[in-house]
């Protein structure tokens, strides 16, 4: 007889997520369900407002991939109005995006995902001298792993643990058998966890130089950017570069090294070598390096076949609400989408932890819709971005991925795992941090002859406009669609990364990446399902992004043309 496991709340993510799995008598997952439990209705609120407010308002969808929706909202309106911002503005936006990724992925790996891999209680048993030497196995120049530093870290945590009150570290799954780091490796990672708290502040400052603040920047406008004074200040430019170097240094010497270490320690741990039920990948263009040249290219990969990359055909994107808490009969293209809440809630049931409210899988069970491409589910995110660019032969990506595989002795197939997904996020960060300086240099070069940052425009109240943004955000492919009438927003819709990954099953019972990734997983102790958390966190969930609403009420937006996935990046 199968047993139900409920995990709610999933912590260390953005937003509110519930995961349920059914395990057999051997504790192997047979079925999995993903449910988002919060609905806010932001796109509905955008209707009837000034199009210039779309960016600042839609930014409030998410404070983690902050900026992504801001940029997407601004650029969707620009696309509708036919406004092209000056090159300086495009480059500053790209620089901000690079700064965002360098912040976001580091915080995800260490502070959100890290505790799935690192047992901090085990680190107390480590020998700091041994750990200090161990660190050289994973990089030639370790950071924050001197014997004295590691000793100080250990003392700090010892003091903390001895109090019996662990605060945010209390009641976790410490000691679980699937934690594979040695005490020394745990201590190295723990030291980096603390160091990363410091570095992420620097990364946020780096962003704020041209972005005003982080989270929730305020320096983009339809037509360009506002931080022209900062852009023209040599002191500000060099401030960005010096902070960039600090963060890049940490990425090279700690983040990269720790993933190499994880690959070594977890290379034979079954529970992280699966986690890939959907082998279709979709990714957009991202990061302007210089005029008309992007760092990442768009495309899709089917069934894990890297020998062929297809171009994205937007009309093949549809959303299904069979199991989402909305009314609707058949799958609809985003621009035809209808969102009419139809909440059915949970039912009483038994779980391994006792009675609880559980998902009724035969009914609706999530605020997230189920996007499909040509009827199939697709994974989006850093892994998709790396795979698409690897398959396309994008040199910087191929070199970075191959060098990592060589260093770890892993085959390409290893990327198609939970471990691979986590590694791909690091590799994407590495490629971005290696190349952000090109964007910076292009900006310096352009400023010499051109100081413009803003393109003037007018919104004709007698005209109707429509436009879209599609690109990449830290969690994957993001799209915003806008329609303007009488000078105001008539319709607005966002289709975001976590929707692709976290959506429920559809009318044809095709399951999405989260749910598929858990099937077949063996859980050591179903009352302490660390293995599930590790897999779900490897996707970097962002729930408030994924729950979107559009009340288009049958309004026809089929005139949108999304022939290519260009326009840079955004969650």
């Amino acid at each position, binding site marked *: 007889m199968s047993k139900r496991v*409920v*995990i*709610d*709340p999933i912590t260390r*993510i*953005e*937003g*509110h997520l519930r995961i349920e799995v059914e395990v057999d008598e051997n504790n192997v997952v047979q079925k999995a369900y993903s449910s988002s439990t919060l609905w*806010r209705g*932001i796109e*509905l609120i955008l209707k009837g*407002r*000034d199009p210039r407010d779309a960016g*600042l308002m839609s930014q409030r*969808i*998410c*404070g*983690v991939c*902050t900026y992504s929706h801001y940029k997407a909202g601004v650029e969707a309106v620009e696309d509708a109005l036919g406004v092209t911002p000056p090159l300086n503005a495009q480059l500053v936006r790209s620089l901000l995006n690079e700064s965002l990724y360098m912040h976001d992925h580091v*915080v995800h790996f260490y*502070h959100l995902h890290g505790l799935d891999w690192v047992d901090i209680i085990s680190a107390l048993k480590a020998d700091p001298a041994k750990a200090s030497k161990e660190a050289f196995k994973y990089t030639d120049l370790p950071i924050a792993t001197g014997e004295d530093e590691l000793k*100080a870290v250990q*003392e*700090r945590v010892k003091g903390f643990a001895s*109090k019996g*009150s662990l*605060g*945010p*570290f*209390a*009641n*976790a*799954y410490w000691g679980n058998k699937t934690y594979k780091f040695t005490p020394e490796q745990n201590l190295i990672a723990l030291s980096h966890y603390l160091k990363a*708290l410091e570095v992420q*502040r620097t990364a*946020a*400052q780096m962003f704020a*130089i*041209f*972005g*005003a603040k982080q*989270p929730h*920047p*305020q*320096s983009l*406008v339809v*037509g*360009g950017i*506002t*931080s*022209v*004074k*900062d852009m023209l200040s040599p002191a500000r430019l060099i401030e960005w570069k010096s902070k960039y170097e600090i963060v890049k240094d940490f990425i090279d010497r700690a983040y990269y090294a720790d993933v190499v270490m994880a690959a070594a320690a977890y290379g034979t741990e079954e529970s992280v070598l699966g986690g890939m039920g959907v082998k279709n990948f979709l990714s957009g263009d991202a990061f302007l390096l210089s005029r008309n040249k992007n760092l990442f290219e768009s495309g899709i990969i089917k069934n894990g076949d890297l020998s062929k990359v297809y171009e994205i055909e937007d009309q093949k994107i549809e959303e299904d609400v069979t199991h989402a808490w909305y009314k609707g009969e058949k799958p609809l293209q985003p621009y035809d989408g209808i969102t009419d*809440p139809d909440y059915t809630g*949970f039912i009483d049931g038994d779980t391994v932890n006792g009675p609880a409210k559980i998902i009724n899988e035969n009914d609706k069970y999530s605020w997230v819709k189920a996007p499909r491409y040509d009827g199939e589910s697709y994974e989006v995110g850093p892994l998709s971005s790396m795979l698409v660019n690897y398959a396309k032969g994008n040199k910087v990506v191929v070199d970075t991925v191959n060098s990592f595989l060589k260093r770890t002795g892993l085959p390409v197939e290893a990327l198609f795992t939970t471990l691979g997904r986590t590694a791909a996020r690091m590799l994407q960060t590495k490629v971005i941090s290696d190349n952000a300086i090109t964007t910076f240099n292009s900006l310096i070069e352009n400023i010499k002859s051109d100081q413009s*940052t*803003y393109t003037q425009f007018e919104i004709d109240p007698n005209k109707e406009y429509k436009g879209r943004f599609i690109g990449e955000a830290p969690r994957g492919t993001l799209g915003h669609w806008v329609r303007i009438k009488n000078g105001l927003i008539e319709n607005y819709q966002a289709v975001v990364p976590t929707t692709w990954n976290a959506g429920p099953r559809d009318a044809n019972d095709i399951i999405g990446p989260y749910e598929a990734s858990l099937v077949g997983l063996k859980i050591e102790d179903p009352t*302490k*399902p660390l293995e599930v958390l590790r897999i779900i966190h490897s996707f970097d969930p962002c729930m*408030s992004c994924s729950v979107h609403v559009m009340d288009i009420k049958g309004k026809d937006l089929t005139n949108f043309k999304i022939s290519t996935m260009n326009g840079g990046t955004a969650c």
Partner: protein
Amino acid sequence: MNSYDALFKQARLQLDSLSKLSSLKEDPLEVMLEKNHLDRRDFIKWAASITAMLALPGHFTPLVADAVKLADRLPLVWLHLAECTGCSESLIRTDSPTIDSLIFDYVSLEYHETLMAASGWQAEENLENAIKNYAGRYILLIEGGVPTAMNGQYLTIGAQARTGVDLLHHAAASAAAIFSIGTCASFGGIQAAAPNPTGAKGVDKVISKPVINVPGCPPNAKNIVGTLVYFILFGTLPAIDVYSRPKWAYGNRIHDNCERRGHFDAGEFVETFGDGGAKEGWCLYKQGCKGPYTFNNCSVERFNQHTNWPIGAGHGCMGCSEPNFWDTMGPLEKPIDSHLLMGLNATADKIGTTLLTATAIGIGAHAVASLFAKSNDRNNEEEQS
């Protein structure tokens, strides 16, 4: 006895009573500081800066320092409702000096979904333990608005699928103090903007206990920390304005201390983004800056360790710490016709009669006079060129 003496005495009494409580942690603050390579001088400097920020006289510094030392007596519970996690993100960006996050380390953070290691049943257990074991002693911090429509079911949390509003009532019942962190918890926020599909409300509209609002989208972490310290120090809630915001943080308008105020007074405005005025850092009023109507200390504290802030980056303030600002301050990049400085942008370049209106509303006669003088000069220049 003057009022500060009374305040001092009150604080001393509060601290004495706190010091009698048992600590949640064994290490005194001094040991914590040492382990983090901070000496007492750093700590006192930090305490002095917090004292100044709270608008208290300098001789309160040792009291602030004592209050922080006693902070480990107070467990914190942080709930996420209808939110974007931006306020939590703001909080983890703090740390210059690094002692700010140390305070949060030192205050026992019993429940915080973004940072805590435990998930699911174990996470819920942590919350229940905190509510039970520290009843009447913990500080409850709320991030996010409270969805109330459809019986609150637009948000459920936990294996029993409790609604956000139910959980809030439960956690609020035994809290020693309640702080709404950010504009969503304070006033409902983005999801409460018209037509407010989920019936989102601020915390103080849902529960009947006193709530201190620390609004902002997100609020500066200094304002969060300062509000906590005030409570520890005085055992009471700070002086607040009509919207329950601590006066020490939200007592002045952005406009009052704005770095571009001189340009406002001189009548030097950015006419379009990216123009000569924008490059010089002129006033953003005509580009929709809501600084004159917004009460907050951003112009003094800035963000990300003073790195920058919206007006510094050439974008007007959008009024994010004011109630319902999404509905009342929009369009965000246009001056508000119906507000105090009504029509100023439209008429400033034409005739001087608005001068009197503007003066009457207290912007300051010299400011407006210079505004027009300069404005007219500029127009003449433009016409000649």
